[in-house]
């Protein structure tokens, strides 16, 4: 599969080779031929059809495009797909198993933490990064960890509650 900015309608410049990248996306090796300038968010969405990762601002401000890159949160609109070659990327699609929602997804449902849902995938990935480091976060720590993710609908209260809910469930599952 080739992922270029085909909408430009010009053939790829002959002096800029298309690169073959293999990225471990949600535990599965995915391969693509990419132009160096292709953004990771676009490869995920258009190339791999993983449209759970949203692009909102496209200027590194909103966090809707947040994915985990080798376990750390990054804004995928601000990294090139070639940079992910050989790396591990987790997207919102990787949260649920075939039969079960991730505690974060359940928490968002229980606490009514989304309205339009646009910010939700990024919120959940940023929250996942937090919970991987700290399974017993305070409300303040959650707000701080999510301060790179903007939500225009909820007012954040229920998002914070949802993360507290998920943390509690994940702690219980550990015991």
């Amino acid at each position, binding site marked *: 599969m080739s992922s270029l900015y085909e909408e430009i309608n010009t053939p790829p410049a002959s002096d800029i080779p298309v690169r073959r990248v293999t990225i471990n996306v949600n535990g599965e090796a995915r391969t693509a031929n990419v*132009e160096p300038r292709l953004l990771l968010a676009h490869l995920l969405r258009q190339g791999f059809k993983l449209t759970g990762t949203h692009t909102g601002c496209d200027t590194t401000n909103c966090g809707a495009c947040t994915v985990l890159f080798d376990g750390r949160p990054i804004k995928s609109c601000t990294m090139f797909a*070639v940079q992910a070659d050989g790396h591990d990327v987790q997207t919102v699609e990787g949260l649920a198993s075939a039969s079960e929602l991730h505690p974060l997804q359940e928490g968002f449902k229980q606490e009514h933490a989304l309205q339009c849902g646009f910010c939700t995938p990024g919120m959940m990935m940023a929250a996942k990064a937090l919970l991987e480091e700290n399974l017993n976060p305070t409300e303040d720590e959650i707000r701080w960890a999510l301060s790179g993710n903007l939500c225009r609908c909820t007012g954040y209260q229920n998002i914070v509650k949802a993360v507290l809910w998920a943390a509690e469930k994940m702690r219980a599952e550990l015991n």
Partner: protein
Amino acid sequence: MYPSRFKYESPKTIVEAIKLLDAGKGDAKVLAGGQSLVPMLKLRFAFPDQIVDINNIPGLDYIRFDADGSLHIGALVRHEHLEKSVEISMRQPTIAAAAPLVADPIVRARGTFVGSVCHADPQGDWAATMIALHGSIVVQGPKGKRTIAMKDFVLGPYANSLNYNEIAIEAVIPAPKGVARGGYLKLERRVGDFATASVAVALDMSGDTVLNAGFALAGVGGKTIDANEAASALIGQKLTEATIAKAAQLVAALAEPRTDHRGSAEYKRHIVETFVKRILVANSAQKVA
């Protein structure tokens, strides 16, 4: 949005990276955390022919205090590494105070300290911190390494004194003469925003006497403001109400704020003076060894 076309290389060594920059003759750009460069490429403010990604060069992510007390920060140390470093929190209060205030947590997971200094954004927190700490940048080019003092490194807004074929490989903060004190305060409209005004203060103290001091400002001028000359009010003195007021006044006088959507010039200058006072008062209250 997407950038214009570029060639991409991710060399495994600094020497290889320098060769690529050299061959680029000014049309090649270093890519570190990408948190300033990628948005600029997407907005087409920058359109290099060649991107030299330094993220795959091993051994550049160190935070190291040498035996002489100097601090060395490698080119791939991300903002969050400094924020989470126990050694930094114990030994370098100005950096420790600034780290959580740079951008937002996701940007901090990727953006680098050295990249930020290179970017020389007048609102950038690290260039100001480095100036207050009397730091320097070690750069490497085809002819080897050289060290550039911070005061000569930032030339203006988004302009540094690197040659096109040089890479900044580490930031160096000299050993404090006594105990390192200081702080960083930033006024932002919302969490994660660039500074309306920020103040970096570095103090070297022996008991309650100031041996050396440094001040720098972000967000209140066309470039990072070097306010180190205000240190004269404090060197050899104790932190008293009078010396603190004098230093704060001198620093505020060096600000070059402009009225904009973040606030009026008078307001920003007032904030600078208040922040200098707050940091100095906090340090005078500390029982120093």
